[in-house]
């Protein structure tokens, strides 16, 4: 394992090596496994977090994302595999020697210390001279816009302010990696959005490598450079927000990221990377990569986003027959729920997201309509076993 690491990161003495070779990632997991008794919390995982990257671990609770974070932090020990931070092998290194900053969901501020003492804690543990501590604490508090709050007790702060203190405390030690464990879930909705923008801004300014754990796909899409989608202890897909949103690799990813409709389809032809599927009387081209072992003639599930569907008068050419079931007012848009015609593999309910409020006046429940299916942007998967 050790020799493998040496192969990948060139010795610093080689001139020009750093230019030609890929720089060492900020964090690297090589085949890491974690079990709790007989339960495998994290199956063999290989992952690189690049320098300065904002990487999100996204998945439902119990998917292994927090286990992965705790392994990086050193709060848990891996049962197999190796973990590197920069060039250092840290698999067996205790948390207090890893130089990571962490912000917990409940912020975990020390209740018996002032804001300044909280922020300066990591520096005191490192034996930094008093004067420098004062300077760096003031700097960190200015960074999170809490300059006047140094002498307050954490108890006197609002949730958003407590989170800023936790962030300052983690950043002041200039960590190699910043770990964020669902930091926004305790905030109310308005504050959450503002804090997300602010955190992202700070992260970009400092260029600190960040690993962010969340179950909220909206948060993941808006903040990340890359997203790691996980479920049941496994990494399902790693990619940019656009890749996981528009090109999900499996049904789980497609269903977990964003809202999605399922249309019944049949695989007609398959050639190389492209394939043609039939949905009712429509023919659409999709990527073949997600189809697994499906052969021509097989039933497939076609996924389409609610905002990609359209509604036309019933019977219009190139549409699927359906009937309006309900109209749900959502403020900025209307969700039109429609039942597919039963001839279409037994029908099914789909949601069409329509901008504006025109649909409320145009369609009433019970109206027959034609569903407009986009030419591109469909993804097909083998049916569920």
């Amino acid at each position, binding site marked *: 394992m050790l020799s493998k690491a040496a192969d990948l990161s060139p010795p610093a003495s080689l001139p020009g090596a750093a230019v030609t070779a890929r720089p060492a990632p900020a964090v690297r997991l090589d085949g890491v496994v974690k079990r709790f008794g007989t339960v495998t919390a994290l199956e063999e995982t290989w992952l690189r977090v690049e320098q300065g990257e904002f990487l999100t671990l996204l998945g439902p609770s119990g998917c292994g994302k927090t286990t992965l974070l705790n392994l990086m*932090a*050193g*709060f848990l020990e891996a049962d197999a595999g190796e973990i590197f931070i920069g060039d250092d092998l840290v698999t067996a290194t*205790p*948390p*207090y*020697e*890893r*130089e*990571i*900053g*962490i912000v*917990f969901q*409940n912020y*975990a501020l*020390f*209740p*018996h210390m002032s804001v300044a003492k909280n922020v300066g*804690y*990591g520096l005191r*543990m*490192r034996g930094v001279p008093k004067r420098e501590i004062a300077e760096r604490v003031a700097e960190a508090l200015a960074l999170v816009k809490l300059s006047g709050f140094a002498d307050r007790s954490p108890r006197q702060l609002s949730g958003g302010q407590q989170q800023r203190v936790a962030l300052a*405390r*983690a950043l002041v*030690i200039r960590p190699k990696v910043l*770990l964020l464990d669902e930091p926004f879930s305790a905030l109310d909705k308005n504050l959450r959005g503002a804090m997300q923008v602010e955190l992202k801004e700070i992260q970009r300014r400092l260029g600190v490598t960040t690993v962010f754990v969340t179950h909220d796909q909206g948060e993941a899409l808006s903040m990340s450079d890359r997203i790691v989608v996980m479920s049941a202890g496994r990494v399902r897909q790693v990619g940019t927000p656009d890749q996981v949103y528009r090109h999900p690799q499996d049904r789980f990813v497609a269903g977990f990221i964003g809202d999605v409709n399922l249309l019944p389809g049949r695989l007609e032809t398959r050639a190389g990377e492209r394939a043609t599927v039939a949905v009712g009387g429509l023919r659409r081209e999709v990527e073949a990569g997600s189809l697994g072992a499906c052969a021509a003639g097989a039933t497939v599930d076609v996924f389409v986003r609610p905002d990609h569907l359209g509604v036309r008068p019933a019977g219009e050419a190139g549409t699927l027959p359906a009937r309006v079931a309900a109209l749900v007012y959502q403020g900025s848009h209307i969700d039109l729920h429609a039942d597919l015609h039963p001839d279409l593999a037994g029908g099914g309910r789909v949601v069409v997201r329509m901008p504006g409020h025109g649909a409320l006046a145009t369609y009433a429940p019970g109206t027959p309509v034609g569903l407009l299916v986009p030419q591109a942007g469909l993804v097909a998967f083998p049916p569920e076993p």
Partner: protein
Amino acid sequence: MRRGLRTRLLGISGKVLVGLILAFIVLPAFVVTLAAFNDRAILSFPPAKYSTRWFTRALTYRDFQTGLWNSLVVTAWASTIALGVGTGFAIALKRYSFRLKATLEGVLLSPLIVPHFTIGLGLLVLATGIGAARGFSVVVLTHVIVVLPFVIRSVYISLQNIDERLELAAASLGARPGRVLSTITLPLLAPGLVSGWLFAAILSFNEFTASLFVTGQATQTLPVAMYGYVREFADPTLAAVSVIYIAVTALALTVANTFLGLGKVLNVEQGR
């Protein structure tokens, strides 16, 4: 209307019931206090004539003076030792899982089940066997055993109220386990330690049954001295001692409340 009347009747009888219960709780203290001021040389109620002469006797009676001193010494040692030992055990029980953990837990909490006279008798036999019968160390040891479960429980509950993530955050910030303990765990545990010590002190100061077995003439604690007194005399001196007891305990709790907050000390509030 009927309904309103019934509700009112229920409300009144509820208040009467609460009043009766409260009266019942303070009744013994009330009777004893009045009896202590009785001028006559018998324990009777209510007194016909009032006097404070039994207080003078209580404070000047030799056995009570040495008994009080012995009690203070034993209480101070026993609750301090129990606090140290109990804190160690509580941390071990909370943080580590090991073989025979359940057994250890059972043994540590067993003084709640084993009667005090059994503990006293057992230690008397043991101490006699090694030739240290009725010495101070045996009395202190007895009290440590009797109060240990309460200390462990008090500290354990305080430990449970400490968010483990505080310690993880400290570790991530570079604090080694020893420094996490000294800068995070112990400061947050302080109210629990104070309440544990206070519980232990009150229990130890009042302990009688086990003390009766292991104390001698020179080492007898105040409750044992009082028992000796009541077997010989029937005057209100004991009532006077009781009043002093109540006053001193109330004073100690008031001081604790002023400086630490009673809710915190008794673990009523969650120290967050």
